[in-house]
């Protein structure tokens, strides 16, 4: 059968036009991006100020190539359509027409950017500043988008309340921060010192416990009711002694640092206090998400696809209102500790200075670390494997002995932990939030997840950063007011759905899903 088709194809020169037009679309996107990047590079002064006049020729060349490319595409498109019409094939040509429209769209956008940038002559310092802003935003979006993608990959539902989970993380972090500040009677550093004085001995004490041995023993006790052995009793007696010893050591180290190395001491207490804030945010988000799964989603697991979505919208409204009644309608403010406040200037010689905020650097690094951890977790750990198997086929996974409920709860918890971290980081970046500030970022993070192909973990990471960059750079490049940056983000969503419904990297779909 296949050979017959192939020979038929060869006779009619009947190529796979859909795939060809897909490649045509991709190449067009690359050409347009090349043109945009080149224009930006030339006008912003990276290639020397004032730029070599010959460099403008390259740009004209790129513009002409894109134009010719579009024209050739039109001819090819018409030829294919005419051919199909003549042979009266009953094939839908929508896809190739849409792909062609996409290339035309790229052409228009590229020329718009070229004219705007040419007229404005934006210096590289501005671009750089927006680039760093975009990266910070992108880190936050990527973390939240991972939550959407993980849940979608397993349950095929949009967790509409994820934006609320995000801002609950911000709120949890805010409460922790306020608590720390109140401990230090107004200053963060004093509060951080006292909370570290409590947390540090606790943590060191816990690390002194024979954790692995305890875990195996507890596991044994749960599985088989055996009589308590003498070593078990010995361990039981030695536990408090070990803990107290560890706590003493921790306390001593802290005091010694405070006395002899105050710089390290300051760094240490700030890091511990910040971690406390982040963990509070993560914990809040996680608990809420687990409760949400239990109350609003689990009873609907076998219902039609869109039923959980309505339930999720309801849950999201309940959370918003609860937050309004707890936090009040006013803005709440984050304060940055002295250590992470301020900017690091990045000097570019005579091109200017890009002030990069320390918070921004920390956010981007921390989000990348979290993403790498998540990737390793999903790929390497036992639970990660279970998650992947459930995403592939729930029923078969259950037959293989995977506890579906546990995996789903775990997925929600991981997504929420990432969102909680993102929420706290968003708080430190924007410095203020209110009960409503989860909705728009949540929607944008969903856009990011769709951009990368929903259900696709690396896709969500890429989509988050891409969306952040587009949102930060788009208003300058297209010459529209910054108030419309949300419009750009949502417009991007619509465009992606029109031209690449499966996202840039493609949706991870198994046979059973659709």
């Amino acid at each position, binding site marked *: 059968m296949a050979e017959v088709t192939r020979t038929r194809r060869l006779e009619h020169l009947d190529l796979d036009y859909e795939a060809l037009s897909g490649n045509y679309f991709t190449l067009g996107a690359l050409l347009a991006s090349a043109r945009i990047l080149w224009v930006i590079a030339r006008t912003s002064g990276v290639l020397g100020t004032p730029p070599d006049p010959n460099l403008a020729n390259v740009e004209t060349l790129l513009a002409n190539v894109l134009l010719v490319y579009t024209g050739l595409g039109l001819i090819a498109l018409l030829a294919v359509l005419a051919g199909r019409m003549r042979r009266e094939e009953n094939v839908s040509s929508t896809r190739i027409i849409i792909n062609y429209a996409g290339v035309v769209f790229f052409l228009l956008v590229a020329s718009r950017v070229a004219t705007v940038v040419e007229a404005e002559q934006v210096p590289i310092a501005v671009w750089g500043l927006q680039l760093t802003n975009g990266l910070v935003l992108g880190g936050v979006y990527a973390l939240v988008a991972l939550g959407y993608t993980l849940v979608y990959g397993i349950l095929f539902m949009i967790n509409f309340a994820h934006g609320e989970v995000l801002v609950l993380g911000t709120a949890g972090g805010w409460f922790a921060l306020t608590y720390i500040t109140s401990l230090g009677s107004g200053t963060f550093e004093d509060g951080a010192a006292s909370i570290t004085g409590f947390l540090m001995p606790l943590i060191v004490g816990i690390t002194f416990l024979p954790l692995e041995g305890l875990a195996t023993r507890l596991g044994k006790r749960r599985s088989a009711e055996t009589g308590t052995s003498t070593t078990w009793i010995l361990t039981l007696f030695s536990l408090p002694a070990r803990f107290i010893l560890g706590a003493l050591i921790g306390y001593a180290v802290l005091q010694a640092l405070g006395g002899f190395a105050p710089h390290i001491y300051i760094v240490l207490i700030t890091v511990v206090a910040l971690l406390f804030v982040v963990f509070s945010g993560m914990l809040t988000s996680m608990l809420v998400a687990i409760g949400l799964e239990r109350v609003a989603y689990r009873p609907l697991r076998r219902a039609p696809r*869109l039923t959980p*979505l309505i339930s999720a*919208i309801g849950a999201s409204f309940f959370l918003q209102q*609860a937050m309004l009644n707890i936090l009040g309608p006013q803005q709440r403010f984050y304060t940055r500790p002295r250590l992470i406040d301020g900017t690091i200037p990045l000097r570019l010689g005579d091109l200017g200075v890009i002030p990069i905020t320390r918070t921004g650097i920390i956010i981007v690094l921390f989000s990348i670390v979290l993403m790498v951890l998540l990737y390793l977790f999903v790929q390497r750990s036992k639970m990660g494997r279970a998650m992947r198997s459930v995403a592939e086929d729930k029923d078969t996974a259950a037959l293989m002995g995977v506890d579906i409920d546990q995996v789903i709860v775990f997925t929600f918890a991981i997504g929420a932990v990432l969102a909680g971290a993102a929420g706290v980081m968003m708080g430190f970046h924007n410095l203020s939030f209110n009960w409503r500030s989860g909705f728009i970022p949540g929607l944008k993070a969903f856009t990011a997840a769709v951009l990368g192909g929903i259900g696709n973990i690396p896709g969500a990471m890429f989509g988050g950063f891409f969306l952040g960059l587009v949102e930060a750079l788009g208003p300058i490049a297209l010459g529209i007011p910054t*108030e419309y940056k949300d419009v750009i983000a949502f417009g991007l969503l619509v465009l992606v759905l029109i031209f690449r419904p499966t996202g840039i990297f493609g949706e991870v779909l198994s046979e059973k899903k659709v």
Partner: protein
Amino acid sequence: MDQALKYVRRPSSHLWEIGLLALALALPYMSFMDRSRTSLAVFAGIYVMLGLSLNVIVGYAGLFQLGHAAFFGLGAYTAAILSIDYGITILATIPIAILVAGGAAVLVTKPILHLRGDYLCIVTIAFGEIFRIAVTNNVFGITGGSNGLFGAGRPEFPLPWLEPVPAIMLAIILALHLLGTRKSGPVLQWGGAAVIATAYYLLPLGLDRKPLFVVSMAMGAVAVIAGAVLRSNRASARVQMIVLVGIVLAFALGTVLGAETITGEIAYSMDEYFNVDDPTTILGVEFTPVAFKRDARPYYYLVLGFIVLTVVGMRRLQNSRLGRAWLYVREDQLAAEAMGIDTTQIKLIAFAIGSAWAGVAGVLYASRFTVVAPESFNFLQSVIMFSIVVLGGSGSIPGVLVGTLGMVVLPELLRDAAPTFMYEGAGPVVILALILGFYLYHAQDRLPAAVLESAAIAAAFFLPPLLLGEPALYVVGILMALVMLIAIARLRRRTARYLPWVAGALAVYTIVLLAAGGSLGPDLSDGVSGFRIMDWRDGLMGVAMVLMMMLRPAGLIPERRRGIAPVTVEQPSEPIPTAARQQTTV
């Protein structure tokens, strides 16, 4: 075969609808309706129209639309801009609003309609946000920024006061009468028509008072409605004729006796509701220019008229070829495609019709409130519209009415209500009786034990408040009763002898409350009085959505199934068969 295929459509009776309409017509004149409540009724009426329009998209075609407020807003802004900047009479902007809203819907949804439902949902949310942001930032400089637009015109139209309008009304009344009685014999059909027509013209012309035509029109309407009611109750032609003559005579008698006062009353009401200018004569017909005043009652009837139009239109639409196509697409898209239905086209039509009609509601909104601001069209409004449809029962018209009552009217009426009934008067007793009655009903198979438990719970419920003299402690008691019943249900599965546990828990509860409850009372009553429903409206709406999806996924008043529905074999292994079961048997 008869068992496998069941014809489930019941013959419809118009009695309900006529009664409801009569109630709606009389509503503004009822004693409990003050100015603000009439205004609320107009607002709710606009939401009914929005719900009905969204029902086309969500209910009939089964698509998700969470940006309906944007199309509502498009209609309102179109009307306001045309009315303010170009001076067009506001009701005349309806066709343009339809074009703008429907066209926008087609433009936005056409490229993504073939995608899965959840994508569509997110894109409509995104569109709603884009609309709100654009309008807030004064896009094209015509939307007035975040303050919105002021001074949209009120509805105005020339009221022809003389011959043509009464004649047209009479023609409509007679046509309705003739159509309705076509099976009741020529005496009722033509004789009745003659009686109506005579009485109609006799009174105003005989007494030479033209405003009495209003009374004649009312008489005609009453006669037609009464005839319809009698027919749906299968009254004989003779009874119908007698009733008709009785109505006409009663009206005639009343009018002749009080002609003076009635004429004065009509003229006064006209002046009160409308700005009535002096009549002008165009082509031999007297026209009286009329504009609506701030009184909400004329708007009420205007909106009511639109609602009736919408309901009739929606019902015709639902039973049309298009409506059936929507049904098939909603139930099984693959099968619908196999039957040769162009699914994308059908969905697009649903979106266009629903959004266009939301635009009409927007025009009404602009004409009533004369201020159009972005905050009236935000995401919350979209969700309220969506939950009106989903909670009421998607696809069902009564469901939309019930949903609007629950989502728009009830919260406003309860705006300042505090649930003090939980500890005042007979309230606690009633609540406890309801809880225990529900429990006993579910525990019928082991009634003695359940009665014992109920008695113990009741004793623990009444003891602390009565002994301490703190009625507010009943609030704790209600919570205790609920928790206890859940705990009993759990315990029963675990242990065989649970009664000691229950008794122990109740004893501990009573002792603790007696020991610590004295100071708890005032706090609780403060807390209950400080609770305002309005603060939690959106949250309660969310909870209602979650609960509804679990308990009754098809809504409060599910859509009546039309056509032939196969009776499916119930599968007990499915964890949630309720949805399927309801859909097949209702």
